[in-house]
């Protein structure tokens, strides 16, 4: 038995700009469905009438609690207060929102407010028999994985490499209940101080021949663009297969690609 709270947000389709379920939040919900049975509380802070919220209900959730607040309000205090009341064993959320401030700060602020441990970039969670500690797998760069052990309760942010979320079904999405809890949230002063405008792509910074980088300037840039890189060029001509294999093996060890 483990109680899980899932924090979900509303995403934004990158091409059409349509509101949709945020992909990593949906993965967090999927991960929660895979855990041993217990209470599942899904929380959203924002506009309760947003149709994209029904996508989460369509995944098989019966009830979604929405802390209703206007746009531009700081949801962290309200969420932390609500979670303190629920006191779940695991709090799951996506590792980055899509469509809001997208700073990825919220789970950290919540964990800090509740005094919980936080595990970032989670792809799998396995609970031990008593349900007191969990073995968590994290996704790292280059497809690597790291396992670690953490005591309940904790906060985990879910990585996009986690198992894909199930599709949302129409029937459950209609049947699911959205419970609206009006809350009083302070305006977000940090965000109001920022100027917002549509994003425009910037030219990519060249790493070769840039002001501080290389020495050659234009010549070096031309070279980097036109020439294939030449290697260090150690050549073994017609070695016996064993010599060749030995040379490759030693080189791989030298480069740290094989254990010594």
């Amino acid at each position, binding site marked *: 038995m483990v109680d899980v709270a899932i924090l979900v947000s509303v995403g934004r389709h990158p091409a059409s700009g349509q509101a949709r379920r945020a992909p990593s939040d949906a993965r967090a919900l999927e991960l929660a469905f895979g855990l041993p049975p217990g209470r599942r509380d899904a929380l959203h802070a924002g506009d309760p009438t947003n149709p994209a919220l029904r996508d989460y209900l369509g995944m098989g959730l019966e009830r979604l609690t929405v802390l209703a607040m206007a746009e531009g309000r700081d949801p962290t205090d309200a969420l932390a207060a609500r979670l303190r009341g629920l006191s779940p064993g695991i709090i799951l959320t996506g590792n980055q929102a899509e469509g809001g401030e997208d700073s990825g700060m919220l789970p950290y602020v919540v964990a800090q407010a509740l005094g919980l441990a936080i595990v970032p970039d989670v792809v799998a969670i396995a609970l031990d028999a008593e349900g007191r500690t969990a073995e968590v797998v994290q996704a790292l760069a280059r497809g690597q994985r790291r396992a670690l052990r953490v005591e309940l309760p904790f906060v985990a942010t879910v990585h996009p490499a986690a198992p894909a979320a199930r599709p949302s079904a129409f029937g459950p999405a209609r049947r699911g209940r959205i419970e609206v809890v009006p809350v009083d949230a302070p305006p977000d002063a940090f965000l109001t101080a920022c100027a917002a405008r549509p994003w425009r792509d*910037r030219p990519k910074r060249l790493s070769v021949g840039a002001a501080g980088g290389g020495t050659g300037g234009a010549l070096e840039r031309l070279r980097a663009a036109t020439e*294939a890189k030449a290697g260090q060029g150690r050549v*073994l001509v017609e070695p016996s297969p064993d010599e060749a294999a030995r040379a490759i093996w030693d080189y791989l060890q030298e480069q740290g690609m094989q254990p010594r």
Partner: protein
Amino acid sequence: MTARRRDPRAERTARIVQTEPRRRLVLDPDAIAASSGGRPRRDPRARRADATLQTAPRLRLDWTGKGTGAAVSMSAPGRGQRAAPAAPPLRVIENPACLIFAALDRPDGALSAHDRQLLAAARLLADAVDGAVVAVAPDGADDWGALGADRVIPLPAAWAAEYAPERRAAALVAAIARWSPLHVLFPESPEGGDLARRVAAACGERLFAGVESLSASRVARRAGGGATELSCAPSRFLSIAADAVAPLGAVRHEARRLDPPETSPDAPKLREARRLPVDPDGVGLGEADFILSAGNGVTDWVVFADLGRALGATRAGSRVVCDAGHLPRDRQVGASGTVVSARCYLAFGIAGAPQHLQGVGGVERVVAVNTDLHAAMIKRADLAIIADAQAVMPALLRLAGEGGHG
């Protein structure tokens, strides 16, 4: 030997001592030797030798006058050696108006390109307010001064290798409390971004995450699912996206060491961190670290698959191989396949067509086995072996099976 070109006209003018009432010249040649001006005589042969960067496999010239000193002195004996680029003068900031922290990642104990960019960003902010850049990172053998750090707060060197985000965050929070820096900069990388959020949350402040453009008065980042640009004056906690700032050129700073602050050794909540073995073929080709690649010269696909498993390498192939169905399409390296960024690329029987070489442009080390000495892949390789792939693969498989004790 710079022979001076004689300029008779100038010599004649130099000898003139009197023009009125009539022109008179000095005839003593010594008197004018020093002042024989004019341009230095051009020596095209020496200039060409000077500009020669390499003669084999083909001639390459560099007329910009920035050729390497060594090549110059060899090709043109007697000519003055070009001075080595002067070391930049040491810049000491004795009484900084404020401090700018740069919390470096140092993944696997080495400074990454992202870390260098972070130091450049910190430098930019520091120079605007006469501040000093403080590098906060696990200790190591780096030359912090040449990287642009005025001060260094060394953390235990072991933290670079282990996963200790809580201890790192605690140390940073303590350092921030003690020195109260104006800005704290983090790299927006998986580990650095995590650390940034931990520290910002612990300090009760907001993080301006993933800065894409930075100046002393304004920072901007992407938000709203990538559709909006948020900008404001630099806030206290910033995390800098990769490639947003150019790294510093030649600089020399003091890199004075500060004592790391004491932190209470709280028991970490995340324990027993360890790397898990991953199936190399499950890793996307674009992010694979070690790739074993086959071309048209490979016919023994069973040994190839075994070798990939034994070496723990992600399998890939050239277009010919994928067209023939020996490997799935998503394993094709090259212009019409995947551009890979592996650290090591082991190629068997690949000719190295331009379309293929484009795909391995970002690879650090290439090992090539090919029967053709003149294949383009052999030129690109750091270790090239001219042998039959079908003979080398089983031998390497045997060696890998024995763990290198053959």
